[in-house]
């Protein structure tokens, strides 16, 4: 990871590339690196689909090593959905392979003059960029089958579906998993549209002939990795609940708490929740010969994913995440698990953010285009996107656009990005993060629950009713830092409860790079990333007025607890006071 690959898609005479040492960006990875490059090199007021925008693809600091859970890849750009800076990350194999090939980042720059579509192949021998218009408007699954036929099945791919080619704001970037399926996505904020605007359909990575990245202190690194894995395995969340039921184990819990947004955020509970819960889903998967416990990349020890088969025992999709099940399920009043899994597949194949699509369909339901609970109509509507029909393009443009087109008032977005699966009226601390995140409404922006260890904003008494702002600040700082390591955010639970596991994470970084990082250094890294991102958004024209939830969260109370979002604007403005 000593070099950065820059591919100028708009070069005279056709795309060209260059490689340069990472230089002053050394020590940055993942989100830290994508945000550093975007904030420095992309004019904040540029059009997100124009030549001036860049798409930065960066594995984490520990990707490509033996470190467990280090397979996240960050994809950054100016977002066509929010208009601000974006880092969206994904699991799958590309982070590990790209890091082993020695790249700290790939930067796609410029814009081709014509409408040719390109594929890029990268292995130990170099980079090959070629026109392949036969790939036009292929879904991700068909595309990857083509790539396997051409390059073999030992590859990892980063690709876009039809949505990305059409440059729709909800388009995702797909990353292949262990089985070389395009089932992992950098979904949020439309990075697929930016990749599409660069004319790049797929980047094929092949690490045949290269070795694992080696640490500066192999013995200490091995010990740290062992302690880290032990910490993950012994923890109730990372060692039990996630492997057994996946993230969808949250459905029953959020529903019971009255914080499960239902019927486009109209209610807080869904009567059909138990029919689409993680517990139910795991049972169905087992019954049909699927897999309820599965890792999305090699080196994952939590294995929160799975394989969801149809009634005949054939692969339908990977196990849908909680947010996907909620977005297409309870939010749309749908309790048909097979239809939800089918929509997950369509999202992945077309290259769409599942949260954005579920919320957008919910808005279409509220507008009366289809009825809440009509799963077949929801599937049909989603298929419109891949076909590129006018209606499909509206849906693929996300919730904010659809809300305007369909004349709906209750549009749950912040900075143009749809809210995820937790009602901010019931869990107000989450609402603070939704409102103030540099990324738009994002449940992972303040996710790293290591706040008690980092104490980056001071200690907060958990039994006090105050402190939402302080906690959100700490969480966002910690998350920005972990997003730079390439570590899956799910490590955060073990890190929260077990200081020795947090120390093991630090030891991994220190022994690999020969550093002596402390918790304070990690917090400072997180702060510096957030400052860069906030500064970019400020220069792009954002003000504190964009750090707000939609008004209906204040004016419309949600049942069963009859609560609204009552954190004041003045309090929200204190989140970024560092």
């Amino acid at each position: 990871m000593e070099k950065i690959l820059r591919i100028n898609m708009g070069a005279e005479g056709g795309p060209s590339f260059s490689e340069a040492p990472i230089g002053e960006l050394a020590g940055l990875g993942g989100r830290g690196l994508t945000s550093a490059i975007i904030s420095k090199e992309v004019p904040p007021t540029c059009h997100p689909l124009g030549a001036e925008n860049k798409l930065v693809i960066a594995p984490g600091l520990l990707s490509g090593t033996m470190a467990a859970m280090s397979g996240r890849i960050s994809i950054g750009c100016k977002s066509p959905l929010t208009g601000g800076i974006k880092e969206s990350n994904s699991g799958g194999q590309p982070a590990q392979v790209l890091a082993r090939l020695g790249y700290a980042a790939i930067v796609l720059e410029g814009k081709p003059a014509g409408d040719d579509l390109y594929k890029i192949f990268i292995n130990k021998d170099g980079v090959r960029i070629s026109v392949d218009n036969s790939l036009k408007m292929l879904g991700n699954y068909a595309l990857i089958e083509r790539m396997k036929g051409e390059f073999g099945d030992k590859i990892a791919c980063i690709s876009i579906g039809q949505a990305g080619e059409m440059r729709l704001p909800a388009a995702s970037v797909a990353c292949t998993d262990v089985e070389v399926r395009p089932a992992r996505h950098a979904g949020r904020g439309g990075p697929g549209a930016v990749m599409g605007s660069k004319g790049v359909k797929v980047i094929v990575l092949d690490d045949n002939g290269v070795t694992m990245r080696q640490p500066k202190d192999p013995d200490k690194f091995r010990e740290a990795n062992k302690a880290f894995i032990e910490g993950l395995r012994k923890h109730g969340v990372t060692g039990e609940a996630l492997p057994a039921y996946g993230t969808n184990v949250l459905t029953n819990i959020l529903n019971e708490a009255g914080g499960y947004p239902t019927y486009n955020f109209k209610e807080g509970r869904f009567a059909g929740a138990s029919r689409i819960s993680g517990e139910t889903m795991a049972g169905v998967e087992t019954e049909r010969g699927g897999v309820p416990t599965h890792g999305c990349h090699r080196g994952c020890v939590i294995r929160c994913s799975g394989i969801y088969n149809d009634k005949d025992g054939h692969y339908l999709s990977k196990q849908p995440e909680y947010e996907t099940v909620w977005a297409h399920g309870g939010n749309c009043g749908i309790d048909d698990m097979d239809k939800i899994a089918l929509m997950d597949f369509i999202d992945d194949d077309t290259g769409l953010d599942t949260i954005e699509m579920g919320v957008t369909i919910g808005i279409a339901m509220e507008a009366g285009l289809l009825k809440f609970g009509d799963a077949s109509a929801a599937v049909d509507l989603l298929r419109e996107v891949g076909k590129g029909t006018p209606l499909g393009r509206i849906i693929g443009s996300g919730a904010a656009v659809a809300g305007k087109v369909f004349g709906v008032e209750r549009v749950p977005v912040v900075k143009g990005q749809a809210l995820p699966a937790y009602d901010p009226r019931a869990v107000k601390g989450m609402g603070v993060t939704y409102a103030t995140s540099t990324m738009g409404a994002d449940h992972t922006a303040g996710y790293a629950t290591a706040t008690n260890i980092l104490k980056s904003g001071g200690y907060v008494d958990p039994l006090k009713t105050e402190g939402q702002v302080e906690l959100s600040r700490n969480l966002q700082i910690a998350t920005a830092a972990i997003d730079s390591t390439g570590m899956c955010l799910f490590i955060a639970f073990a890190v929260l409860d077990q200081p020795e596991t947090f120390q093991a994470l630090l030891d991994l970084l220190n022994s690999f790079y020969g550093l002596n990082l402390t918790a304070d250094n990690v917090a400072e890294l997180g702060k510096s990333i957030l400052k860069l991102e906030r500064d970019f958004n400020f220069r792009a024209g954002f003000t504190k007025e964009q750090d707000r939830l939609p008004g209906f969260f204040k004016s419309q109370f949600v049942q069963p607890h009859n609560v609204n979002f009552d954190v004041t604007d003045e309090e929200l403005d204190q989140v970024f006071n560092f």
Partner: protein
Amino acid sequence: MMSDPDRARELRVVMKRADAGVFMPLLQEGFIVRCKTGITIEDLLREDFGIARDYMEKRLSTVFLDGQCIDDIDSAIVHGGAVLALSSAMPGLVGATLRRKGILASMRASITHRGQTGQAVSAGEGFVTIKLFNVLAGELGPVFLARGIYVKAAGMKDFLQKRGGPFWSAISRTIFDGRQIDREKLPDALGDEAGALIMLRLAAP
């Protein structure tokens, strides 16, 4: 309208306790138990159901009473008609937020249980709805099933009609109203009278 639990017909299922996880759909949906009321969650689970305090401390990480988050199971009072949901530690920021006495508890302050309001709750006996989520369904399900749980007959019928081979192979015998009954005949025997309850009890082979 739910019928009188005292009039519920009994379905006894003979099977190994370790296989009780096959009833997960019923356990997560919620079932009714007859138990002491007007006492704390901890007292209820310990005194009435024999669940060890140590287990509660280690495993009951997320607890809801009538949809409100519980921090202290030793002070929240269970009243007749209450809904008590039990879960292990949950993932995600919100999972950590909902956790008992968690560092992020203030983020869900508006849905946190603050003790009883209005009329005082007196100790007695009554009916409480219990929901068991995730790994706790497998661990605590046998405890409740061995004592007997009340479920709606129509729900039980629907549940049985959807079960496949793995479910039935876990069951040695089914006894309904004191008589052994074939599995094919069982759903119809349960009836579908609106609100009628069945008492489901697990018996060792």
